[in-house]
């Protein structure tokens, strides 16, 4: 295996492929070999050869290379929530074991159109419900920094694959933090674009008013490249609006003229933030000032209620979206003599514990007599959270917080306590509720509370809706100043 090829960023590799310095096939094969040695359970399906990776017959070849497409020859790990024609797609659930979709999701089609190849399908929490990847029906993915710890979730396989050098880039989905939190825990870049930036067509639905597709990469420029290829309006998803003017590749090197708000509810006053995470966060805030940015404290008074609102709204939408898994048209069927019994047996055996919990929670919140008290109130809290952000953005260009309150936790540590697991999303949940974009970049490493090996810490930047390009520029300047490296932490 060629380690030098594996360490290239997407931007570097694509550049070399375009200039003819690197053969796209050689590059793909290096990764195919790396992916074949997956010891992190990061990938649920791997392309066995190049033709398998070239979905819908549009084989990436010399032609593509010559055409100079932005991602020509780039292998990508695709979260297993995206439908890929003829390639197993399970959403991490046993209820879809062996399912091969008849079509490919728009986001993946766009990547293919830009020249990328599907290297593998990434492990995930079942139907994207989880913050540790331990809810996968196919066993947890492991954190490449410490295989005794979780990679985060739900896009845990995507993050582990990119950080573990099994893929140069990946795509995932973020509903309450499912791209940003695993990116933070694995020491890579993860971005949730503005709601509607990328089509959700062919992306198996969890909570439709929150779900959004985004990139997981090793650099901010790579995130921009992948997002640039995917964003845009799609007639197959009426909620997709794209980003006006597209995504610009980031070039910013300082933060002069920009202002950053630090919301005390998600930083200084937030409970449960580890001291090591706090230190890295504060150091990064100082770096912003050194780069010429202005920093001041601000408030998001309703953000602490984000978890409450989220764990009503997302399960409510999920309970409706997952009604389709009934053993009739596709997926698992458990035979029974009577129809209702067939539904009930199929669903109880096909779904894992967390999915059942969320379906129950959502069904309860929507049931007669409780609808207004839970769903109605949660929708109003959502309005207040969005208003808080709007107010903050009148004064500041961006808002910054730690991405995850803790570094990667141990496997099994939170599995018996659903609420403790949900609180992993404390800092990431408010943004999707408001529909705004946010990015997590690796900011350094820290020991967990109680000591131990240094593990990555993520820094989150959130901006107003459709500020995606400006946000990437800001992240780029900060990334340069942080100088995070895989083995040496920050320096």
């Amino acid at each position, binding site marked *: 295996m060629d380690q030098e090829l594996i360490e290239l960023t997407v931007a570097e590799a694509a550049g070399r492929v375009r200039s003819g310095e690197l053969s796209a096939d050689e590059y793909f094969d290096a990764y195919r070999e790396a992916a074949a040695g997956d010891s992190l359970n990061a990938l649920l399906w791997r392309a066995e050869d190049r033709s398998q990776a070239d979905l819908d017959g549009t084989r990436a070849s010399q032609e593509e290379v010559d055409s100079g497409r932005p991602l020509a020859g780039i292998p990508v790990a695709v979260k297993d929530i995206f439908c890929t024609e003829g390639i197993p797609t399970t959403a991490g659930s046993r209820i879809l074991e062996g*399912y*091969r979709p*008849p079509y490919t999701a728009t986001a993946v089609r766009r990547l293919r159109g830009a020249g990328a190849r599907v290297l593998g399908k990434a492990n995930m929490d079942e139907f994207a419900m989880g913050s540790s990847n331990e809810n996968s029906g196919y066993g947890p993915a492991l954190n490449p920094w410490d295989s005794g710890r979780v990679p985060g979730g739900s896009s845990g396989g995507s993050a582990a694959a990119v950080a573990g050098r099994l893929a140069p880039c990946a795509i995932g989905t973020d509903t309450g933090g499912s791209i940003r939190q695993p990116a933070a825990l694995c020491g890579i870049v993860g971005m949730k674009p*503005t*709601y*509607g930036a990328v089509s959700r067509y062919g992306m198996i639905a969890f909570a439709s*008013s929150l779900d959004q597709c985004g990139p997981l990469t090793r650099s901010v420029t790579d995130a921009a490249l992948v997002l640039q290829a995917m964003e845009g309006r799609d007639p197959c998803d*009426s*909620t997709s*609006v794209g980003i006006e003017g597209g995504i610009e590749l980031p070039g910013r090197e300082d933060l002069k003229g920009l202002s950053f708000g630090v919301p005390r509810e998600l930083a200084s006053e937030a409970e449960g933030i580890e001291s090591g995470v706090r230190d890295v966060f504060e150091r990064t805030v100082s770096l912003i000032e050194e780069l010429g940015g202005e920093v001041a404290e601000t408030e998001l008074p*309703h953000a602490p*209620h984000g978890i*409450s609102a989220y*764990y*009503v709204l997302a399960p409510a939408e999920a309970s409706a979206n997952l009604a389709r898994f009934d*053993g*009739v*048209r*596709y*997926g*698992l*069927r458990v035979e*029974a*003599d*009577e*129809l*209702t*019994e*067939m*539904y*009930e*047996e199929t*669903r*109880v055996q096909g*779904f894992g514990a967390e999915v*059942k919990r969320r*379906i*129950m*929670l959502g*069904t*309860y919140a929507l*049931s007669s007599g*409780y609808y207004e*008290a*839970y769903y*109605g*109130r949660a*929708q*109003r*809290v*959502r*309005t*207040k959270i969005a208003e808080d952000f709007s107010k903050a953005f009148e004064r500041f260009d961006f808002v910054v917080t730690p991405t995850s309150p803790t570094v990667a936790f141990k496997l099994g540590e939170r599995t018996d306590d*659903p*609420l403790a697991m*949900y609180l992993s999303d404390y800092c990431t949940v408010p943004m999707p*509720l*408001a*529909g705004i974009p946010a990015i997590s970049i690796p900011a350094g490493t820290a020991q967990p509370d109680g000591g131990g090996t240094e593990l990555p810490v993520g820094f989150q930047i959130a901006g107003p*809706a459709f500020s995606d390009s400006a946000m990437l520029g800001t992240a780029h300047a900060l990334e340069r100043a942080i100088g995070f490296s895989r083995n040496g932490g920050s320096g």
Partner: protein
Amino acid sequence: MIRSMIEREQVEHVATLARLKLSEEELERMAGELSGILEHVDRISELDLEGVEPTSHVIAMENVLRPDEPRPSWSRDEMLERAPDPASGAFRVPSPQA
């Protein structure tokens, strides 16, 4: 004020609505877990939300209509290929009144 304790009977009722045949053990555990989560969620009952509009969708949307023209869709065979029990060009299910 919302009542956050959820009784076992309620869990059973919700499981029926959700078409999940939970085992005795699952019903028991679910009652405890849901109560714990709802207790946390109930903090939103303390907020004054009088007159606040609910948000169901975050971006401004308008209805878009396209011409209602027939166009090719998936073939029946292709759709039935993935069905657990296709029969006579349809999805076969057990009788609702066995």
